[in-house]
């Protein structure tokens, strides 16, 4: 078997996926054979401190959470860009460093804007 060929490297990963999935499924199936099943109306209501819940929980929620996810996408992509650069930094030398510094600076402007406009504040 050629060791450097890409698929062979990922084969164990896929197998691990199958094993993990198998573990979860087997446990659930095994459990279903031994565990009791006696549902009742009270058991099946969602927990809300012992009081029947008012209204649904699946609803629109605060926009803050959405903002955080937008910021995440932005900065995560930045991080991903940084990875190959970091690995190759020694080869790229000062030119690469300055190049990336400029890239980060541009992002920092956005970061500063987000900070100023209060997107990073929770209240």
């Amino acid at each position, binding site marked *: *078997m050629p060791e450097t060929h890409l698929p062979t*490297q*990922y*084969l*164990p*990963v896929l*197998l*691990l*996926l199958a*094993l*993990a*999935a198998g*573990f*979860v499924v087997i*446990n*659930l199936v*095994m*459990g279903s054979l*031994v*565990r*009791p*099943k*006696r*549902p009742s109306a009270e*058991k*099946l*209501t*969602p*927990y*809300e*401190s012992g009081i029947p*819940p008012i209204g*649904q*929980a*699946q609803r629109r*929620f605060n926009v*803050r*959470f959405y903002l*955080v*996810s937008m*910021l*995440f996408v932005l*900065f*995560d992509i930045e*991080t991903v860009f*940084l*990875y190959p650069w*970091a*690995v*190759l*930094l*020694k080869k790229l*030398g000062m030119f690469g460093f300055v190049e*990336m*510094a400029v890239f*980060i600076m541009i992002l920092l402007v956005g970061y500063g804007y987000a900070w100023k406009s209060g997107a*990073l*504040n*929770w*209240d």
Partner: protein
Amino acid sequence: MTDLIQPIFQTAAWVVIYAFVPSFIVMNAVLIAGAFLTYVERKVIGHIQQRPGPNRVGPLGLLQPLADGIKLLTKEDIIPAQADRFVFVIAPFLSLVPVIMAYAVIPWGEPTTLMGVLPWLRVFDGWGYIPAAWNPFPLVPEKATLVISNLNIGVLYILGMSGLSAYGIILAGWGSNSKYALLGGLRSAAQVISYEIAMGLAIVGTLMLAGSLSLVDIVRAQESSFWYVLAQPLGFLIFFISGIAETNRAPFDLPEAESEIVAGFHTEYSGMRFAFFFMAEYGAMVIISAMASILYLGGWLPLQLPIPSALPAIGSTLAVTDGAVRAVNGALMAVPPIVWMLSKIGFFLFVYIWLRATFPRLRYDQLMHLGWKVMLPLGLANIFVTGLVILVKG
């Protein structure tokens, strides 16, 4: 006929030896270790809090995890009537599977002959009963690498898997259709993604030093220089703090802050499904500890003390001779690499537990503030300084 089947047989044997056996061993080891970790945690916290901890099931309560497992397996599985069934069922699955998969790239030690077992297997001829052409044993490697798959993008792979795990949590919160679960799920999602950035940035410093994304290569790079915690103390701190936040552990355990939102995202889960979330949490703790060991404490490398005479500044003031230090180093060298790796992981796990027993919990806005306004800028500054130093020095 034989010509056709033999390659298939060979391939199958290869898959079993190189993929199935290591995967199976690692997965089970991880799951058992995770279960045992709950015992250790309860015992350690118990002693910190001046109480014995579990001590009823088996000697010293050692069988407690087993009893818990049986109990959870036989518990009624309740799916709330108003829940989104598909999402509710898939959530624990999505939470646990990526955590197990992340273990694929963790190296546990130097390639080893397993105390001479492997070379013996390689030449095993089946006492003459297995025809040479059908003998799978020559496929056995001379030395086992103690990593399921040394991916060249190992670090990225782990970050990706831990990110996937957040899906499970947010889907659990949403699918339960319970308000406490929803709050817990949202908190968790926001927290995990916020700290994932800080964590990603902290790692960049290490990558610049090592010049590789492969975890094995990162350890090798430390072998030829020094443990990166010395060069990256700030990065190390950011990484570990973010790691605690990313695994939703105290003092960042807001998604399941029982005093505020009861049990958070897994409020509605019971039985085995609940257990999967637990396994995922403890599995992730081990991953973060293993990552911290590999990236900053030299993975499986033994601890080596500096030789006094090699330290021009303080070497002469120390009251130890070079010989004594060399002897100690030799003894440390003799400890098997995998023991080093596991002890380092154990150390970080202990810190995890210790923190949980000691600290109050942060408030939600403070947590986000710390992640976005402190960790993120510090992470960027760390990259900048590290890059500059590397370029100036060499």
